[in-house]
């Protein structure tokens, strides 16, 4: 099969995306133009056969699932939350953190009524407590999740914890770890069928870079 088509790669904007581009650069998929800044949205590298574009981290999976990007790099949290129909080809081992339940230091779940859970990750929280048979009341928030238990809006929060500094500074602590999170390489299932060799090459190169 011909592999002449450019592989479209969706990169998450921000620190994680910068690290991922570094990995791709080292793996032989350079596109110096991407580092120049400016307002350009799409960066082509005909020599290496790839085309990059930056998108909001939570949108990477949408671009890939709908075929606008062939592959992309996304946090495991997004994959667990939205369950997109994609291949998860590689754990890049970067952007490591954990999805956890946190609460005030004096919190005790007396199981007398539904547990009030504030989170950005409603689906992950629901699945987690469904597994445990615990009745919960989800309070979906879009930011400053740590504030919810402090103001009595929720009993616990389900959120990403990196170093735990924000929690500690607000007298919160991790009650339970749900799942470890890191960046994953994902691929559109249909695109993979028509560009398997190219996508496998990128996967292998990134995997090799990860080991070094």
């Amino acid at each position, binding site marked *: *099969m011909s592999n002449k088509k450019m592989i479209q790669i969706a990169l998450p904007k921000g620190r994680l995306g910068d690290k991922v581009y570094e990995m791709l650069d080292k793996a032989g998929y350079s596109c110096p133009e991407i580092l120049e800044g400016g307002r350009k949205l799409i960066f082509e590298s005909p020599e290496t056969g790839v085309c990059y574009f930056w998108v909001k981290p939570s949108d990477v999976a949408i671009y890939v699932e*709908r075929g606008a990007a062939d592959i992309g790099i996304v946090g495991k949290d997004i994959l667990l939350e939205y369950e997109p*129909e994609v291949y*998860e080809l590689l754990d890049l081992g970067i952007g490591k953190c954990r999805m956890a339940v946190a609460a005030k230091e004096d919190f005790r779940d007396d199981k007398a009524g539904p547990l009030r859970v504030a989170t950005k990750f409603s689906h992950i929280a629901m699945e987690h407590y469904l597994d445990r048979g615990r009745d919960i009341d989800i309070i979906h928030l879009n930011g400053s999740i740590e504030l919810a238990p402090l103001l009595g809006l929720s009993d616990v929060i389900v959120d990403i914890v990196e170093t735990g500094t924000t929690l500690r500074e607000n007298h919160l602590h991790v009650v339970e770890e749900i799942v470890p999170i890191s960046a994953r390489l994902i691929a559109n*299932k*249909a695109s993979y*069928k*028509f560009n398997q*060799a190219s996508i496998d090459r990128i996967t292998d190169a990134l995997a090799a870079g990860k080991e070094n």
Partner: protein
Amino acid sequence: MMQQIPDAAGVRKSSLRPVEQLVFALREIYDGFGYSRYRMSKFEEYDLYANHKDFLIAEGVITFTDTNGKLMALKPDVTLSIVKNTQDPASGVQKLYYNENVYRIRQDAAGYQEILQTGLEAIGAIDDYTLCEVMELALLSLHKAGGRYVLEISNLGLLSELIDACGVSAVYKAQVLALIGEKNRHELQRLLEQAGVEAADLEKILALLRLDEDPAAALSQAEQILKGKVNDAKLQQFVRVVKALLAICGGQADPTADGQTAAQPEGAIRLDFSLVGDPNYYDGVIFKGYLEGVPKSVLSGGEYNALMRKMGRKSGAIGFAVYMDLLERYLDAPEGYDTDIVLIYDKDTPLEAVRARAEELGRDGSRVMAQARIPEGIRYRKLVRFDGSGDACGKEGPDGEQ
């Protein structure tokens, strides 16, 4: 991309949308293989779907209460209705195809969907020939849609047996299958280790996820991996059928030359065990079809003997569905023009002359719209005006210009 589907039963091509032409073309193919058209009601009792909810590819059945107080559903799926409403054939295989609308609740948005689905089912004593024929028909269906395509083939029965033989308990099996479906080798490895699978067996499962792109080489790799771990007769049948499919469909430079031979451009058949399904329904060959440019699979099918047994049937069964709603966007890409020719007449032009001129202009298959004035916002290829004497003079209309 505007596709033209060849040979749509003598109907003027421009009068049918490409997706409608494809429906006709597929009917001709299925008729040609001796499949008969199956028609059914739009409604079924809701119980049928409630009892086999996991078989449906999408949740969300539209229900209503009939005049006798029975809970009914607008059919969200065709296969279950065919299985329910047909009998086990006394001998041979019952071969059926359908073009039916199915109804679903939209998953991501409010409202309902009416989706045209085409497909076929073979019910009875399913032998090697039938397995191969159904997959050939799947390939032909993809070929008729035009462009590059891939039919990926897996065998859920063999994969499921391998997982069991490797000592994966029922607690882990669904999760293992889900990770296999994602080609998620890194998490699969961790889970299999956690499930206590031995290193050699773990390697076998992981190796099955990265078979060669070449189907013949992949088949031989899969055979080596599965040998000794699964039922040998079932493995040999799978190998025989895929080999036969490659022999029948391989090497045809012009697949439409003899009308009824599947196209097999290089790479169109893939063996990929990351294609999984629900083992409670599917227990043999399963397959999915992809067209370049469509982000999801447009065809899906397989052997569903387990479903047949669940529904109290003795026969085996295999079938597939083509999702016309996904093909619609691919085939019916905006053409850019509302009509080919706008014929402008004035109030003094005799009606007969306008009609005669429109007919003359439309003889080459062009779409001709007769109007007293150019409608607002219309896009046309060509503008033709009647002058006072009754002669017409042609004038090229720039795209979108009035």
